[in-house]
C-alpha cells in the first residue's frame, strides 16, 4: 500500500490522462480516476487481508466510498439498481456483524450442535434482510416520486402515480 503511494502521482499525471478524453477539466478528472484506482486497490488488498471485525467495518466504509465515487462518475439507471443492491447487502452485513458480536461470550448449552438451527437462522436472516432492504427501497422510491411531483418547474411524469 505504501508502494502504491509512490505510484499514485504517476497514475494521476500520466496513466489516467489517457482515459480523460474530452473532459472539461482533464487534470482534475485524471486525479479523480487515480483516486478511484487507489480506492479499488485498497479495497482489494484489505479484502484479502481482513481478519478482524474492525477490518470488516473498514471494508464496509471502503465500499461506501466506492458507491460515492460511482455516484460522482455516472448518472445512470444501472447505478440506481446497484445502489439498491448495496443497501440490501449493507443491511445484511451489519445484521450479521451485530449477531456475531452479540453471540461472542454468550452461553450455549450444546456448542457445535446447531447445524439445523444455524441453517434456519441463516434463512430467516436472509428473509429479514431482504424485507428491510425492500422496504427501504420502496420508501426511497416513494420519497423520490413525491419530491419529483412537488418540485416547482418540473413535470411530474410517470412517478406521480405513486400515492404520495
Amino acid at each position, binding site marked *: 500500500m505504501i508502494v502504491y503511494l509512490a505510484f499514485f502521482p504517476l497514475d494521476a499525471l500520466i*496513466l489516467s490522462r*489517457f*482515459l480523460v478524453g474530452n473532459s472539461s477539466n482533464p487534470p482534475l478528472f485524471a486525479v479523480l*480516476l487515480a483516486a*478511484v*484506482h487507489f*480506492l*479499488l486497490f485498497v*479495497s*482489494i488488498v484489505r*479484502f*484479502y487481508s*481482513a*481478519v*478482524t*471485525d474492525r*477490518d*470488516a467495518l473498514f*471494508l*464496509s466504509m*471502503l*465500499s*461506501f*466510498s*466506492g*458507491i460515492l*465515487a*460511482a455516484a460522482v*462518475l*455516472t448518472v*445512470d439507471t*444501472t*447505478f440506481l439498481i*446497484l*445502489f439498491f*443492491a*448495496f443497501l440490501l*447487502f*449493507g443491511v*445484511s*452485513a451489519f*445484521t*450479521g*456483524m451485530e*449477531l*456475531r458480536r452479540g*453471540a*461472542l*461470550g*454468550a*452461553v*450455549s*448449552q450444546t*456448542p457445535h450442535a*446447531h447445524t439445523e438451527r444455524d441453517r434456519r*437462522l*441463516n434463512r430467516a*436472516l*436472509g428473509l429479514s*434482510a431482504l424485507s428491510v432492504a425492500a422496504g427501504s427501497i420502496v420508501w426511497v422510491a416513494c420519497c423520490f416520486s413525491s419530491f419529483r411531483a412537488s418540485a416547482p418547474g418540473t413535470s411530474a411524469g410517470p412517478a406521480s402515480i405513486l400515492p404520495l
Partner: protein
Amino acid sequence: MAASSTIPSEAALPAERFFRTSLSLLILTSTVAIVSTGKLDIVTTFAAPLIVLYKGFGAGTGAQPSFHTAPQPGP
C-alpha cells in the same frame, strides 16, 4: 459447568457464513458500481470484479478462516 457451556473463541459464531457472504457481495456491488460507470481502463474494468469474485467465492465455500472479534476490554 459454566466453563463447559460457553462458546469457545475458536468455534464458528452464528451467521458467520451469512456475514461473510453479505460482506463479499457488498464489496462486489461497490466494485461493479465503479466499473459500470465506464470511465476506467479496460484492465481495471475486468480485473477488479474478477479478483473480488475469486476471493468472495473462496470465502463462500468456507475455504477462508473466519473473522474474529477483537478482545473485549476486561473489567
